[in-house]
């Protein structure tokens, strides 16, 4: 019996399992980042929203400046500033409903604060008194996440769980251009698309992963072009245009909430400050690049638009500045107080109940601390 006889006749058909499952074209990002400010789209933007964004941007910038100052004063161990990226930070927080969840990366303190997290509690990780200073459930903000991209699958799982429970909840996950290279990025996007989970991925492409420029991170036409490979739409947006970021995020959130599944959004932005206060950015980039980007400052862009359209006058600016100053003063004052720490907390939350082993260690530390406080030093 030849193989032919065994297998039946020849079929000139394409492989039976193959049907293109969807038209990829709508999933591809536009060639140019979406912009609102300075374009015709700006006219359609809600003035109240723009003013709200403006106030938040000014407050956010002030927060970045204040937090950076606190590192110099030794009140913060380290601060990864998002100066220059405030439009993304603020728009991410504002695009969500109260019941939604935010999954920030380590740089996104500002997004957490804009969503309502107490400005001091948001800095706990970076001050070093604990790992997370706020209750994630209070404002539905996951802990600031240090291991890059690892929070993305969390966002997918949470969104999926909410959907299974019939809750109308969307998760927004933030990650950097560098983080997009991690395997967790890939796995999270794939799970999200397969499960059609109500999750939005916001990549802040700020040009660098510490010192590594985008060209060494990816060879793709854009990071948003990754979306089609998961079967979700990819969108490209000017990350310094707060109105544009807010609109694109809001669309994606609405789409997700309506059961349309996940979206990947790449926001083109720039980190004006060094990676953190501990970093020396002159080692890997020139001043002129930074200067160019200063000319595309998110606050300036929005301020110009508002001013042009007569939506913002000196009083309005002053009000925004005053609110920002009040926040900064409060932050300064509270950060200048030493946090009250109890070393015994080290054992309190490792498990629901400490293991017998931990109880022994707890006793040991307690005895040491008592000896110490009794001054009975060796």
């Amino acid at each position: 019996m030849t193989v032919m006889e065994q297998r039946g006749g020849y079929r000139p058909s394409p492989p039976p399992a193959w049907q293109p499952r969807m038209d990829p074209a709508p999933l591809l990002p536009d060639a140019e980042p979406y912009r609102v400010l300075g374009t015709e789209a700006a006219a359609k933007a809600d003035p109240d929203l723009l003013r709200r964004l403006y106030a938040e941007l000014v407050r956010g910038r002030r927060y970045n400046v204040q937090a950076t100052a606190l590192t110099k004063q030794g009140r913060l161990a380290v601060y990864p500033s998002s100066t220059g990226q405030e439009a993304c930070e603020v728009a991410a927080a504002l695009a969500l409903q109260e019941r939604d969840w935010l999954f920030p990366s380590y740089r996104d303190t500002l997004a957490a604060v804009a969503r309502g997290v107490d400005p001091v509690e948001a800095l706990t990780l970076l001050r070093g008194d604990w790992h997370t200073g706020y209750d994630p459930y209070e404002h539905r903000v996951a802990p600031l996440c240090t291991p890059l991209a690892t929070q993305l699958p969390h966002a997918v799982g949470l969104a999926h769980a909410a959907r299974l429970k019939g809750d109308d909840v969307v998760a927004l996950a933030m990650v950097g251009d560098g983080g997009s290279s991690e395997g967790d990025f890939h796995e999270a996007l794939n799970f999200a698309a397969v499960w059609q989970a109500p999750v939005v991925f916001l990549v802040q492409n700020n040009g660098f992963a510490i010192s590594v420029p985008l060209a060494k991170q990816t060879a793709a036409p854009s990071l948003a072009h990754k979306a089609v490979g998961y079967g979700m739409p990819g969108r490209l947006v000017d990350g310094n245009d707060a109105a544009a970021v807010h609109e694109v995020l809001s669309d994606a959130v609405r789409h997700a909430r309506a059961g349309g599944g996940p979206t990947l959004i790449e926001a083109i932005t720039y980190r004006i400050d060094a990676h953190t206060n501990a970093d020396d950015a002159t080692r890997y980039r020139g001043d002129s690049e930074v200067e160019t980007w200063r000319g595309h400052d998110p606050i300036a862009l929005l301020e110009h638009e508002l001013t042009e359209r007569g939506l913002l006058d000196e009083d309005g600016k002053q009000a925004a500045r005053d609110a920002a100053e009040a926040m900064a003063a409060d932050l300064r004052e509270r950060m200048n107080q030493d946090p009250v720490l109890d070393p015994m907390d080290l054992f309190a939350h490792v498990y629901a109940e400490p293991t017998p082993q931990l109880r022994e260690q707890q006793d040991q530390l307690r005895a040491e601390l008592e000896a110490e406080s009794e001054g009975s030093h060796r």
Partner: protein
Amino acid sequence: MTTVAVKPATMAQALTRALRDAMAADPAVHVMGEDVGTLGGVFRVTDGLAKEFGDDRCTDTPLAEAGILGTAVGMAMYGLRPVVEMQFDAFAYPAFEQLISHVSRMRNRTRGKMPLPITIRVPYGGGIGGVEHHSDSSEAYYMATPGLHVVTPATVADAYGLLRAAIASDDPVVFLEPKRLYWSKDSWNPEDPQSVEPIGRAVVRRSGRSATLITYGPSVPVCLEAAEAAREEGWDLEVVDLRSLVPFDDETVSASVRRTGRAVVVHESGGFGGPGGEIAARVTERCFHHLEAPVLRVAGFDIPYPPPMLERHHLPGVDRILDAVGRLQWEAES
């Protein structure tokens, strides 16, 4: 244990039953992993669950272990109780970052606000003729990660009881299933409420006076066999089944060793840096003046797990255990 023998079942069946009962009792329990749905898992432990509870409760995930555990973290954040299956021991490694950096630490990170009640089922160990990467004993990695419970049954009843307890735990539990005991059979009554054992208690599987064999999981039956064989040599061996590596039941173990004065730790995992070092060290700290001889270890060699045709030389067997017992300085006694 006060279980009433009713009908014989395999360990795999007991595990399936535990999953089923847990899912029936609590709608928050979700099973997820590779091939756990339609197929019922490559070991059939999740057999029938997708049919009974639907694909949303027992879900075939994409093939990505970090993604499985990572999404389970998010699900747990939202109040679910994911039970994750890692298809084989070595295929849990891609999920290590999620495990170490998040699963084990989220409760502590958030001062108890965000506990993660996730059960991670990992079929582990050798003796099944598996090709490379299918027979690892990776418990040392889990033990060295604070914030995890590490549990492993050796009997059919414990498989049920401990898995129920693991799923009920508000902490993450790495639940190590000894692959080669999946088909071991025993009589056991799943209706008996006593069959849910608390996590953290070792059990004396066999009483003896001469020396204690401290062991767990797949090595428990081997130690019991060794204890039988040892009678010929005049040794009356006690066998302690740890059942839980974390938390560790110092009380039961130390009490036994204080009684017998001699101990051998037995496990499949490699010796160097393996669980036995910890166990021997803590037993010695606690029982030093009761010890007639150093606590010895019988473990897998410090080599990558061997190919099937050579695994019998690697696995701790009766002879190697008895050799170790023989080296417990019996002369010193008389």
